[in-house]
């Protein structure tokens, strides 16, 4: 259970980090 919980959280953190990279890129383009 602990292992599954960590896997779920790890995927969530990875996804959020990828989204944030795209978000920052989009924001910078629009700011320019």
């Amino acid at each position, binding site marked *: 259970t*602990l*292992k599954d919980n*960590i*896997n779920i*959280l*790890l995927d969530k*953190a*990875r996804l*959020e*980090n990828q989204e*944030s*990279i795209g*978000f*920052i890129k989009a*924001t*910078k383009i629009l*700011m320019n």
Partner: protein
Amino acid sequence: SSDLEQLCSHVNEKIDNIKKTLSLRNLGQEPALKTMLNKIGDEIIVVNELLNKFELEIQFQEQTNASLKELCESLEEDYKDVEHLK
């Protein structure tokens, strides 16, 4: 009475630990349990690896938060400039 309760839970906790350790003592005899124990040992290594990766992701997320905050502040500066222009 709360001190006494604390004292009792302290003693009970030690007794629970001893019971747990006693159940471990008979592990050696049964091969099936020994296999299970080794499997748990392997899983612990895997879970620690996952925790290392999770920790890295959190560090990255903390850095991303700092960049997002910077971006937000500079955007708010831009907004003030545009408002001033207007």
